[in-house]
C-alpha cells in the first residue's frame, strides 16, 4: 500500500526547550499532593515505580532526549528498554504541564518516532505485532472474517453498502478476543435500542494504527489510517462512534487532520441517549463498583463525566472512586503497546490497579476500554483478585429492560 502522510511531522528537536529545562523536580512521578488522600497511592508512573532508576521516569527520558540532542550519548540497548517500558499514560504531562508548561509525553512519543527513524528502536520486540498487521491488518493476527463474527444475528448495516448516520468503528480489540465479543455486541445493542442509525465497515475495517503509533512507527500508522479514511469517504460518513479509546485517540487526533469527521466515544453517545430519555436503564445491577478511567479517554480527552453519568443512571449500582481517579488514574498496564513485549511488567501494573480497587472496597471495576477489560480479566484469571470486571456498555446493557 502506498504510504502517505496524514499529519504534519513534528520532530523532537522542536521540543528542545521542553527537555532542556526539566529540573527533575519529581512532579511527574506521582499525583498532585493536593489531590491525594492516601500516600500509598501517590506514585503514578508505572515504569518509574517498577524499574526505579531515574531514566524510567519522564524526567529521565527528557534527559535522554537532551543528551541525544547534545550528542552526549548514543542510543544503547538499555535506552530501548527505558523508552519502550513507558505506557504513554500521560500522567507525567498532566502533572508537569500546568506547572511548568513542559510536554513530557509528547517528548517521549517523538523520541520513539526518532528511535524508529534513526533505526535504533527495538522493533524486533514488536515483530509479531507488526507482522500480524502486515498479514491480517490486525495487531493480534485475527483475520478479518473472524473479526466480524460478533456482528452475526444483530442485523448491523454495512456502511459501505447502506447509508447510515454514524459509523461504528470497532477497533483492534473487540472483534479479536472471544471475551470481548459480548461487550461489543452490547455496544451495538445499546445503540440500536437508542435509535442510533449506524453501520460498520465490516471486513474492510483495518487496524486503527494506534499500536503502531505507540511504538513510533508513524509511516506504517499512516498507511493504516489512510486505508480507513478512504473507506470513511467511500461510505460517506462524517460521524464516527467507537468504544475503543485507543482508536478514539487516533481518530480524533490524527484522522481528523486528513478528513472531516466528528468522533464520539460510546460513553459520550450513551450519556446523551440517557439524557434525552432515549434509553432507560431500569433493571437493578447490585454491586459496589469503581470506575477506572482509561488513560486515552480520561486524561487525554477529559471524558470523565459521561461514563459516570451513564453509571449513575443504573439502579442498584453503588459507585465509589479509586484513590487515583479521573486525571490521577493509574494506567491498567495496557498503554504504550508495552504488553506486546513485556507482558509480565504489564501484568504487574494491572495488579497494582486491582490492589487499589480492593483497597477502596470495590466488588467490581467498570471501565470503557477493551484493553483495560482484557488485562484486568487476564490478571484476575491468574489469581490476582476476585473482583468482577465490566465494560461500560456491558453493565449498561445488563440494566436495560
Amino acid at each position, binding site marked *: 500500500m502506498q504510504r502517505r502522510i496524514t499529519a504534519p511531522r513534528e520532530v523532537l528537536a522542536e521540543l*528542545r526547550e521542553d527537555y532542556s529545562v526539566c529540573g527533575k523536580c519529581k512532579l511527574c512521578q506521582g499525583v*498532585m*499532593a493536593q489531590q491525594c488522600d492516601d500516600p500509598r497511592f501517590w506514585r503514578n508512573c508505572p515504569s518509574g515505580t517498577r524499574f526505579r532508576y531515574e531514566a524510567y521516569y519522564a524526567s529521565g527520558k527528557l534527559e535522554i532526549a537532551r543528551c541525544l540532542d547534545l550528542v552526549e550519548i548514543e542510543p544503547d540497548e538499555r535506552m530501548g528498554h527505558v523508552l519502550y517500558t513507558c505506557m504513554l499514560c500521560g500522567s507525567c504531562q498532566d502533572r508537569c504541564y500546568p506547572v511548568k508548561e513542559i510536554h513530557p509525553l509528547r517528548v517521549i512519543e517523538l523520541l520513539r518516532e526518532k528511535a524508529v527513524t534513526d533505526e535504533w528502536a527495538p522493533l524486533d520486540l514488536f515483530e509479531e505485532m507488526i507482522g500480524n498487521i502486515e498479514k491480517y491488518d490486525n495487531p493480534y493476527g485475527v483475520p478479518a472474517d473472524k473479526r466480524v463474527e460478533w456482528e452475526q444475528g444483530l442485523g448491523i448495516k454495512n456502511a459501505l453498502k447502506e447509508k447510515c448516520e454514524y459509523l461504528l468503528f470497532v477497533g483492534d480489540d473487540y472483534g479479536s478476543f472471544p471475551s470481548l465479543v459480548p461487550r461489543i455486541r452490547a455496544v451495538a445493542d445499546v445503540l440500536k435500542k437508542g435509535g442510533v442509525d449506524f453501520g460498520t465497515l465490516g471486513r474492510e475495517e483495518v487496524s486503527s494504527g494506534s499500536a503502531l503509533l505507540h511504538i513510533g512507527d508513524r509511516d506504517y500508522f499512516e498507511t493504516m489510517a489512510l486505508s480507513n479514511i478512504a473507506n470513511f469517504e467511500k461510505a460517506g460518513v462524517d460521524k464516527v462512534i467507537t468504544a475503543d479509546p485507543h482508536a478514539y485517540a487516533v481518530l480524533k487526533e490524527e484522522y481528523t487532520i486528513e478528513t472531516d469527521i466528528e468522533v464520539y466515544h460510546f460513553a459520550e453517545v450513551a450519556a446523551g441517549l440517557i439524557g434525552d430519555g432515549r434509553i432507560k436503564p431500569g433493571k437493578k445491577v447490585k454491586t459496589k463498583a469503581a470506575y477506572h478511567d482509561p488513560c486515552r479517554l480520561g486524561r487525554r480527552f477529559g471524558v470523565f463525566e459521561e461514563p459516570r453519568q451513564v453509571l449513575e443512571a443504573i439502579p442498584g449500582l453503588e459507585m465509589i472512586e479509586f484513590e487515583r481517579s479521573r486525571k490521577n488514574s493509574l494506567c491498567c498496564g495496557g498503554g504504550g503497546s508495552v504488553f506486546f513485549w513485556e507482558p509480565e511488567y504489564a501484568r504487574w501494573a494491572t495488579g497494582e490497579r486491582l490492589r487499589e480497587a480492593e483497597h477502596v472496597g470495590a466488588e467490581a471495576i467498570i471501565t470503557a476500554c477493551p484493553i483495560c477489560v482484557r488485562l484486568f480479566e487476564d490478571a484476575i484469571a491468574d489469581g490476582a483478585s476476585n473482583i468482577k470486571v465490566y465494560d461500560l456498555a456491558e453493565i449498561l446493557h445488563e440494566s436495560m429492560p
Partner: protein
Amino acid sequence: MAKSKMRQEIEARRVVNRPLVMEKDPVHNRQENLAKALADLKDALGEEWATDDVSILCGYARDQSFTPAGYPHIVCMPGSTEDVQAVYRIANEHLIDIMPFGTGLTTAGMTIPVYGGILCDLRRMDRILEIDGENMYAVIEPGINYLELQAAAQRLGCRVLNPSTSATAGVISNHAFCNINLMASKYGFGMDNIIDVEMVLPTGDILKTGPASYGAVKGHVPGPGPDLSTMFRYAFGTLGIVTRMTIRLYPGAKYTQEVFPVYEKDRLSVMADALYMLAQDNLALELAHLMNSFFGIFIGDNNREASKVSELMPRHNIMAVFGGETQEEADLKAHVTQKMLEEHFPMFDYMPKEALVDMTEENEFINLDKWSKFFNVTVRVMRVRGSFMIGALIDKLENMVGIEKLMREACTNQVGTNDDPLAPDDASTYLQPYHMGRSAYMEYDMYTNQSDKDDLIRILMGWFRATFTAMSKGMIIAAGGGALIKGLLPMGDLMMAAIQPNMATFMDAFTHMKMTLDPNNISNRRWEYDTQTMKKFILF
C-alpha cells in the same frame, strides 16, 4: 580556516560531549577498577540494581542548578543498610568515589558526581520503619518523601514540619541538609528535629547515634554522653550515608483557622516587628511572611498564575494558621491574635480567607483545604522551568531589614532579564522568625532560563554580588557550605577568614574529621587530602 558544518552545528547546539572523564590520570575511578566494582556490585545487590548503561547514567548528570553535567560511571540502588555497607566496601576496595543520592530533588548540584564514580540512589529504601503518634517520632529510610510521611503522621494526629520544598522531596536528605520550614520555624528547621541517625560510614561501618543506640529508650532528649547526631548535618554525604533517621513529629490540629494580615507599603521593618510579636506570642501553629511576589509563587500553580496572584496581593502578607481541638478554640486564637495586631499595627488590613479562595478558584490544582493539609507542592522548586540559585541568610531580624533592599538591588542589577514574568528582584524574598526569637531566615533566589548561556552568567554574577553584600554585613550564609569550598579560590581562605573569622578554623576541623572517617576520600570527594584544596569548582 572555515569551520566544518558538523562543528558549526555542534557549537550551535552547545555540545559538551559526554563528560565522563573528569580527571587526567586519576587515582580514583580508574577504568580497570570500575569494571571490577560493577561486577562486585551486581553480585552484592543483584543484577538489576547496578549498571553502567549510559541511558541510566545520564539521568543523574544534571539537576535544577546550572552546575555543569557530571556523569557517574556506575549507578547502584541498594535496598538495605547492609547493601549500603557493601557498596562502601566495594568502593574502598577498588578506590571508587561514592555520591549519595536521596530522592535527587536538588537545586544546587549537590548530587551531581564531580569526578564520576558510583552514584548510590537510595530510593529503594522507602519504608517508614516505625511511627509513634504517642511519643511523636518516626523512623524512616532515605526514600521516604514528605508527602508519604506527612500523611502517615496525620493518620496518628501528628504532623511533620512543612518544608520549603516540594512534597516529593526526601525527608532524610532535607533534614540532614537543613530543611528550611516555610512556616513553622518556631520549632526550628528540619535539621533541629533529628532525634538520631543510623549511618554507614565511608569505611562501611555502621554508626548509630542517640540514646537508643546504647540501650536507652528512643526519646527526644539526647544523652547522657556526647550526641553525634548533629555532627553529620550539612555534611552532604561527605561523611557517609544516613540509612535511617528518627525525626520529631508535632501534634496536628483537628481544626484550623487562618489570619491574613496585609500591608500595602514597602516597609519591611513594620513586618519584622509584627512577625516578632506573633512569634513571641506563640499562638500560631504556622507563621510565614510572604511578599506579594513570593505569595504568587507560593500559591500559583504556574508562572502565569503566580504573576496574576502577585499583582492582586498587597506588598506584604503574613499567613498565620491557628489550631485547636475545636473550631471555637482555633477561631478564638485567631480572633485574639487579630485583635492584638489591630491594636499595635493599625495600618494593617485583613484579607478574608474567602478572598483567597476566590483568587485561586480558577487554579485547577489549588484546593486550599488540601493545600493546608499536605502543603503546596508547586512551591518554588517545581514551578521554575529553568534553573535557580538559592541564597539563604540567617541573622537577627533587624539586620535582615537593614540589608533586604541592598540584597534585592544586588540581585536585580546583575540578573537583569529572564523569561520569568515575575521581576527578578521580587522573585523570592521572605522572612521567617526562627525559634520564636529575632533570629530570622531570609532568601534571595534568582531564576534563570537554563538554556540561555548569557542568563547563566548574569545569575552567577548576581548571586555572588548578593552573597558578598550579605557577607560584608556579617551575615551567615545559611546553606553552610563554607567548609566544603576550602581552597577553592586563590586567597579565598584568607578572604573568608577576614569576613567570618572562625570559618578557617572550622574548615580545618572539618577536614580532619573527614580524613579520619573517610581514609580513602571516597564519600562525595570534594577536595584532595594532600593539598586539602579543591581542584574543580563545585557549588557547595
